[in-house]
């Protein structure tokens, strides 16, 4: 059974978001996503300073099996990426909601996380996907 923390918001494409106290949004992939991908071996995060549109393919997570796009759950400027992942991509497997975060954006227009799912809705999505 997937771990789905209740304090996060989720995209249908299996990213999670957490709005920080400073208004930036931290983004990662869900426990379900990391388990489905298998052991991660390479992560390409968007460059700091890049402006993302919501829904844009902006990062790549590659597992032993395949490469998968990560889509920006919110639009905005990338303000940080997780440096740990260059040498330890497996951190996303072991701690997808903590040390395995991917990048952080400052949302454009302050409107963070519109149209994202809460934990209950994401859990239902996973159940429906079977």
């Amino acid at each position: 059974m997937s771990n789905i923390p209740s304090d996060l918001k989720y995209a249908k494409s299996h990213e999670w978001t957490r709005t920080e106290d400073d208004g930036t949004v931290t983004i990662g992939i869900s426990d379900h996503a990391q388990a489905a991908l298998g052991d991660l071996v390479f992560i390409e995060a968007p460059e700091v300073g890049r402006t993302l549109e919501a829904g844009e393919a902006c990062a790549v997570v590659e597992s032993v099996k395949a490469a998968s796009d990560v889509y920006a759950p919110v639009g905005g400027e990338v303000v940080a990426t997780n440096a740990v992942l260059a040498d330890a991509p497996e951190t996303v497997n072991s701690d997808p909601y903590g040390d395995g975060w991917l990048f952080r954006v400052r949302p454009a227009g302050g409107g963070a996380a519109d149209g994202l799912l809460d934990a209950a809705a994401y859990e239902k999505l996973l159940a429906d996907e079977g």
Partner: protein
Amino acid sequence: MGHRTPLYQAHVDAGAKIVDFGGWDMPLHYGSQLDEHHQVRRDCGMFDVSHMCVLDLHGAGVRPFLRRLLANDVSKLTATGRALYSCMLNEQGTVLDDLIVYYMDDEWFRMVVNAGTRDKDIAWIRRHAAAADVEVVVRDDFVMIAVQGPNARSRVAPLLPEADRPAAAALGPFRARACGDLFVATTGYTGEDGFEVMVPADRGKEFWNDLVAQGCAPCGLGARDTLRLEAGMNLYGSDMDESTTPLESSLGWTIAWDPADRAFIGRPALEKQRAAGARRKLVGLLLQDRGVLRGHMRVVTSAGDGETTSGGFSPTLGKSIALARVPVGAGDELEVEVRGKLLKATVVKPPFARNGKPLV
């Protein structure tokens, strides 16, 4: 639902992620493909390879038949249990399958062919066997388990009849031995020492569980693929198939050209290609930039484009590696198009890793 081996339920019970592999429901991994890979390089892991097809060929004419059927020459096999790797070619000299053939006695050879080519192979072999007075028996009554890794032999030994243990421990590479009702071979597909064990199917699950008790970790096809890629071993259907010859697949060493009058199927076409020079070659690639190579990526060389045939992340090297078919004049520095970007890669001679150690 696909075909299932007698060990299917054991895989499910062990938490395997099951995937379709050539029409078979097989374990991809039991949790972590990376851990399973390292387990084999460092200690011992085991794979259910019962989906592979075991054929017994019987008859007074079996040796001359196989000397015609296979590009390698079974005349090299003169002692019971000796094994040989060979391609089976069609008349065009391209690869129908790759296989291992074991010499049992003068009127009996055993072959192990790929699961995905099973029906095609059986039809081809039977078609040619009819005139040769050779009987082809499909041995679906075996479970086959590949136990691989530096500690594989010592883990299997207690499960063999006591009288056979010293001989099994001393078996050289590419040799096999009947141990009671078990058939134990020192073949494998990982670049590590170990045994492939054929077990009567009705004892298969018990034997598997006994191996678990001996400390053999179940490993899935995912690790099997990264292990064989590191070992520089071709995968049929990816690195060679009916559109490529052995000369274009770095398998020239498996063609027995001598004696010149041995008329194996595909020989005239191959000789023509050898005389003209193959235009393509299969090479190993080591990715220099960060990223992961996969199959079917465009390779850009000074002599024109090629394509990766297999690729992935090498857990032993911590880098990405691939096999690629490129124009024969390609240099050692080239580029691979990975998700829209050209990344630098270097041609290296496989194997990339073997016996627990990086080789490039």
